[in-house]
């Protein structure tokens, strides 16, 4: 099988990337999805709040997905569901498996990786205690409830104030469960403020900052969890333990880009994002392999995933048509003070259209600050911010003309308190 472009993953990133590539003239595209339908995690995110930036309205996850699925169909882009990509290599061969085709090799001119992310588990954060049933990651619980139609528990404690955890606190409550508390290790939430208000405040669910779960009781099913306050080093403080009787513990303790395929293909991974290093076109360290969405870095708004995926789709189209320019001025982005990561990590000036959005996360909460953009140590732009938090991704828009007088150099962004 031969295609111009293989898109791995049919969630919001893959859908937008495939559509954008087609609109930019790529003919033979195939999108590969491992689940039984397109849309990815959006299908289980039945709450609203998606699409404000892209469509100017608030859609639910399935609605947001369906708009793209419809467009994909209108553009007659081929796709395979229930199909697993088992391997990708640097020769841009993609090995797939499904029930009809069996195990097949696809040769591609370009590949876009959009596999998304997975949830951090109990094991990864090392909570001690028993290992009963009743411990779920928030996303798994969301799938059980919203798609499979089954409840996961009656009395619930949620560890982590990530968005999925907050959303699930409300969802569980509306389905008749009692959510006793949301417990967050950090002194701030990693979720959006509007979710704290509409999911916790609306239903009087307490949120404890600087607390964590230190023990799980229950040999067969969860019977309770012990939570404790932590000190500045995130170590539980003796004497602050409180036992909560419950049958369920939900974890919303972070997402990890799923890059096993990328790693095995030899793509370089940035330890800060756990995703591939990418350039302005979302191209990875292997020429012709692009990546976008949560596989690159974890986003909090799907709208930004879409924008990033469109950039990857255009990049792949340019590459396939031989229009990408690989020599010329290269600017690398580096973290300044207060910045945890910046994506993309590399800008090839000649490939920029008029402007570029840089995505980044800060390392702490800063009120009334500036984001200073420096090129070669010189401030070229400065953005005032009333508040930045690690829970909300920041974007900085730069014009090509802001950069065009420079040669190869590094671009740093730093948080400056005012």
């Amino acid at each position, binding site marked *: 099988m031969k295609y111009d472009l293989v898109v791995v993953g049919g969630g919001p990133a893959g859908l937008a990337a495939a559509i954008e590539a087609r609109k930019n003239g790529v003919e033979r595209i195939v999108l590969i999805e491992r689940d039984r339908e397109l849309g990815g995690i959006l299908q289980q995110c039945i709450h609203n709040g998606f699409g404000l930036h892209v469509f100017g309205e608030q859609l639910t996850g399935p609605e947001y997905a369906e708009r793209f699925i419809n467009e994909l169909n209108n553009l007659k882009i081929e796709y395979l569901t229930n199909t697993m990509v088992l391997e990708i290599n640097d020769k841009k061969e993609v090995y797939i498996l499904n029930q009809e*085709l069996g195990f097949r090799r696809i040769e591609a001119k370009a590949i876009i990786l959009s596999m998304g992310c997975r949830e951090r588990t109990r094991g990864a954060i090392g909570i001690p205690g028993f290992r009963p049933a009743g411990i779920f990651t928030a996303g*798994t619980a969301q799938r*059980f409830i919203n798609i499979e139609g089954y409840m996961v528990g009656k009395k619930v404690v949620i560890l982590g104030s990530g968005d999925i955890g907050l959303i699930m606190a409300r969802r569980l409550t509306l389905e008749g469960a009692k959510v006793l508390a949301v417990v967050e290790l950090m002194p701030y939430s990693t979720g959006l403020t509007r979710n704290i208000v509409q999911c916790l405040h609306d239903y009087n669910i307490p949120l404890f900052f600087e607390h964590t779960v230190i023990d799980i009781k229950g*040999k*067969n099913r969860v019977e309770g969890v012990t939570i404790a306050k932590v000190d500045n080093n995130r170590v539980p403080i003796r004497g602050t333990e409180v036992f909560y009787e419950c049958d369920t513990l939900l974890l919303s303790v972070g997402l990890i880009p799923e890059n096993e395929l990328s*790693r095995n293909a030899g793509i370089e991974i940035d330890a800060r994002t756990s995703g591939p290093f990418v350039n302005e076109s979302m191209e990875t360290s292997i020429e012709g392999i692009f990546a976008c969405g949560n596989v690159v870095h974890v986003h909090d708004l799907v709208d930004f995933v879409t924008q990033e995926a469109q950039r990857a789709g255009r990049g792949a189209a340019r590459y396939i048509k031989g229009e990408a320019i690989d020599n010329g001025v290269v600017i690398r982005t580096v973290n300044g003070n207060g910045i945890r990561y910046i994506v993309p990590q590399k800008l090839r000036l000649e490939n920029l259209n008029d402007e570029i959005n840089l995505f980044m996360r800060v390392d702490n909460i800063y009120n009334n600050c500036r984001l200073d953009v420096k090129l070669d140590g010189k401030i070229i732009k400065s953005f005032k911010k009333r508040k930045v938090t690690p829970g909300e991704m920041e974007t900085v828009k730069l014009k090509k003309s802001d950069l065009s007088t420079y040669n190869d150099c590094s671009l740093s962004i730093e948080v400056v308190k005012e």
Partner: protein
Amino acid sequence: MFDVAIIGAGVIGCSIARELSKYNLNVALIEKENDVGNVTTKANSAIIHAGYDAKPGTLKGKLNAKGNLMFDELCRELEVPFKRVGSLVLAFDDDEMKTLGKLYEQGIQNGVPELYILSKEKVLEMDPNISDNIKGALYAKTGGIIGPWEFTIALAENAVENGVNIFLSNEVVDIEKKDFGYRIITNKDTYDTKYVVNCAGLYADKINNMVSNNKMEIIPRRGQYYLLDKTVGNLVKYVIFQCPSKLGKGVLVTPTVHGNLLIGPDAEDLIDKTALNTTSEGLNFIVEVARRSVKTLPLNMAITNFAGLRARTERDDFIIEEAVDAKGFINVAGIESPGLSSAPAISLYVIDILKNIAKKIEKKENFNPYRRAIPKFIELSEDEKNELVKKDKRFGKIICRCESITEGEIVSAIHRNVGARTVDAVKRRVRAGMGRCQGGFCSPRVIEILARELGVEMTEIEKDHEGSYILTGPTKSEVQ
């Protein structure tokens, strides 16, 4: 009426059951859990020890080295993952170098082949990730790693294939002495048998004390472990021990037979035989000790932690003998480490005891020593993959992404002669849910497949032990 009833289907019970299935005997294998190998067998270091640890003359000393050498053939017959990667005991000072000398001597007396004391330079050349602070190491070429529950499931399947009757979810509540032998009463049924083999692990004392006045006490000794992701599974090439202490063989760092990295255990004597919980103290301890053995320990790649309980007695050796006051009642108790490594030799030892008691037991003519494993789809060649998918479409559908496990494998695990009934039983047989996402993505599908194949509702599917229900009911039914 059974000839032999084995109480307990851990690695020892299943091993004995398979050995007995070579004879013309009517054998019952009675287990309180809903799966075989579901207590001590499933939570240990998964090591086949070479056999230099135990004092010469003890049962442990006799049976470990002998058992070790039986694994190649057994695992070939049963298609169980087993690798003789070799083991190293590290010494960090002169005293410990002396200990290595003692272990070496013990090993020779116990009949352990291919033991070597190596210099620091040689060790670091063999495995550069081992700590620079060592003085030397004892290298045992026969040390190995195995899938302990896969081994046990395979033994059980092969035993059943050869006529053994298995009764799961049957907890023995009483045993009565009768003229013919014994009547075993469980929470479900009654089993009459001429002979009893007590392999009840942590509860071997309870079973013994039902028939014998020679009371026994099993002390649960807990060990805690961290399991790390496959991306760091090649951190070390060998099973890395430190010098043994009073509490056991110490904290090890080892690759697993599936390519993960395992560290642990600590050793803590308890009273509660169900205390399978990990503690922050225990976990911190094993990490601290394990860091001595290696240059780096990427704990951020941990995917789970767990605890196991070993069945210890004051005798500090295996107890494998007929109870003095209960004829035909054979105890196989106190099988702590190196119990897994000794299991094949223990079975032979038990058969000899039985032969002495029963006098005439005959070998079967049609014993089938082979057990075919469930095909590991991802490891097949391109042509084999396509052939299998053509034959059975369910092999074309990946359910567990992390370990690349197909629906075909899961369905097969459910319909084996000792089939999976729970999510964890599926996991133990085909590794669905064993990977880095820990079943986050595949558990809804595995539950759905189990429910479909077993003809029950999804809400009836349990995670592991009885009572470990996962779903509490359909949505909409609890709305208030």
